[in-house]
């Protein structure tokens, strides 16, 4: 009896189970960027832990319930969620090599991200004008660090998106450009995941 017969003969196990070869570069690049994103999420977990420890340390200053506007947070959340969806649609347009749909998806994603930032900056400006500055209490220091760090990531994402659209315009859908766009869409979706944590822990739990 041959070995092939023992294992059920040729074709019993799909050939692809053995003949993988090295993984394509796009898989490797996405994996490396995924590890970076996880390290970024670990950084945010430290900021979340700091905030949760200091949330009651208001030092006689304003607490979250007096500062946070539910409507503004709901609109911010909507902006980021829809922009995550349009980022997915942009990724599909890239898969179909459709430049017009790619630009359209990127433009909508950019506008929604920018709208989120405008709302966040106006919130910060209003708080600082009312005397709720980062120096006022440990609670406010932790708040501005956590939410501001997320806002800085969104700002960086918008710059990155602009650069990527310039690359699509000048270089077209080269494999390298596609890999960078894949990393960008991972980054943008990860920012939305962190925002889910922020609106739950900071804003929704904060008004109670």
């Amino acid at each position, binding site marked *: 009896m041959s070995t092939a017969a023992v294992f059920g003969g040729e074709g019993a196990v799909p050939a692809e189970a053995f003949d993988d070869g090295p993984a*394509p570069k796009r*898989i490797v690049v996405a994996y490396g960027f995924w590890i970076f994103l996880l390290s970024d999420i670990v950084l945010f977990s430290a900021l979340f832990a700091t905030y949760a420890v200091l949330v009651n340390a*208001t030092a006689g200053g304003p607490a979250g319930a007096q500062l946070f506007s539910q409507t503004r947070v709901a609109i911010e959340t909507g902006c980021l969620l829809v922009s*995550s969806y349009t980022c997915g649609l942009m990724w*599909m347009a890239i898969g179909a*090599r459709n430049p017009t749909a790619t630009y359209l998806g990127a433009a909508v994603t950019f506008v929604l991200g920018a709208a989120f930032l405008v709302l966040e900056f106006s919130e910060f400006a209003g708080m600082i004008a009312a005397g709720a500055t980062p120096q006022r209490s440990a609670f406010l220091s932790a708040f501005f660090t956590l939410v501001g760090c997320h806002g800085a990531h969104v700002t960086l994402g918008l710059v990155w998106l602009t650069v990527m659209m310039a690359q699509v315009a000048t270089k077209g859908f080269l494999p390298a450009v596609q890999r960078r766009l894949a990393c960008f869409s991972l980054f943008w979706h990860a920012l939305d995941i962190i925002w*889910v944590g922020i609106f739950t822990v900071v804003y929704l739990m904060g008004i109670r």
Partner: protein
Amino acid sequence: MSSTQSHDRAPGDDTPIQTGGEAFSELLVYTTGFVLAIILTAISFWAANTSLLWPPGVPLGLAVLAIAQMGVHLVFFIHITTGRDNTNNVLALAFGILIVLLVVAGSLWIMTNLNANMVAPGELMNLHMQH
């Protein structure tokens, strides 16, 4: 993209161009995730603002909803699956979650303990911490 095609490709090759059927199923995945995320977000905002629910239970409910929504984002937007080519991503994610849990739960546990054990200078702490 068929599996045989993807294995015949050399590393660094182009991503295959999508056909209409694949694009439709991908659109379905994104849209499903989007709808689920909207529903979970809406429930979160409702639960935080309603007076119908038992107030001490609401933060736990909000945490569960947030974790569920993060799961939806991971599966439908970031496309973490149980597929063979995703094993490394899942393992890295599991390690990331472990570290996040250690950092958050560990910090809260230790700091709560410290606060509770500050008996003698408790009033002094209260001035700063309002605990």
